[in-house]
């Protein structure tokens, strides 16, 4: 969706925090949120793209102002309520009024530790030839969709060239709607000068990973 989360190229947020401390979490509750998220048993209908879309639906002012892991909490809370696993009242009080559906045995501590390091894979076998070839000119479609998409707003309608073929990957747009569809993924190189007035006259490039259905031939 065309929401506040699509921050690429947006200006006015001040300097980047170059001296941000190196620790992975800035507070104990953040580590706890991360641990809960990685280890919780969940309905099989939840996936990363549906979760990301639920994050995009956070109120824009909250999205910009609240800490990153607070967004995780809000997104999971919304999914819990949406699936009827908890009510807003239960989340607000911190006490369940009824036992939820059985989702399986909770993880042990050692399973949880292993889980943190378990990679999730979204690449899939490529079962047809990619539509576009290396070096071919392509244009990012001018439209995204009102659900989840990973086509950045700043690239829409812009022309680039295929710089790498990346095999086949689960299309996030469909995955967020509960459908697994794999498509060829390309790294497309855009001339920065075609995207931003600041880059006029430079040879700088922006490389973006884009799914086949985000593109049309030039």
């Amino acid at each position, binding site marked *: 969706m065309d929401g506040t989360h699509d921050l690429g190229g947006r200006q006015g947020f001040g300097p980047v925090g170059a001296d941000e401390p190196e620790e992975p979490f800035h507070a104990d509750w953040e580590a706890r949120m991360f641990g809960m998220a990685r280890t919780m048993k969940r309905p099989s209908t939840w996936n990363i793209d549906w979760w990301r879309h639920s994050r995009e639906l956070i109120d824009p002012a909250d999205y910009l102002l609240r800490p990153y892991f607070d967004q995780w909490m809000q997104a999971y809370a919304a999914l819990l309520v949406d699936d009827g696993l908890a009510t807003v009242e239960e989340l607000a009080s911190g006490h369940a009024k009824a036992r939820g559906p059985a989702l399986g045995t909770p993880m042990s501590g050692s399973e949880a530790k292993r889980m943190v390091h378990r990679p999730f894979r979204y690449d899939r076998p490529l079962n047809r030839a990619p539509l576009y070839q290396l070096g071919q000119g392509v244009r990012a479609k001018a439209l995204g969709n009102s659900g989840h998409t990973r086509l950045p707003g700043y690239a829409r309608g812009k022309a680039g060239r295929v710089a790498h073929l990346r095999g086949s990957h689960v299309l996030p747009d469909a995955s967020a709607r509960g459908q697994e569809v794999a498509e060829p993924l390309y*790294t497309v190189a855009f001339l920065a000068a075609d995207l931003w007035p600041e880059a006029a006259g430079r040879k700088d490039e*922006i490389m973006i990973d884009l799914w086949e259905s985000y593109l049309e031939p030039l």
Partner: protein
Amino acid sequence: VREPRGVLAEFGLTLPESIAIRIWDSTSEQRYFVVPERPAGTEGWNEERLARLVTRNAMVGTARALSPAELETV
């Protein structure tokens, strides 16, 4: 993605105009990591000595690896 030279300057890295910049905007399928450019004067160094030249910012692409002379002053 928009003002790479300005952001790098905020990290204290000013690149000459002769260097073209490629920005990798990962949409999460592919992850990328930075391999810092090998500083001059490190020919024949082993992995352990080279690793001492690599800082946190060198690994996130906002600084060059230390030169042998800079390592002396750290």
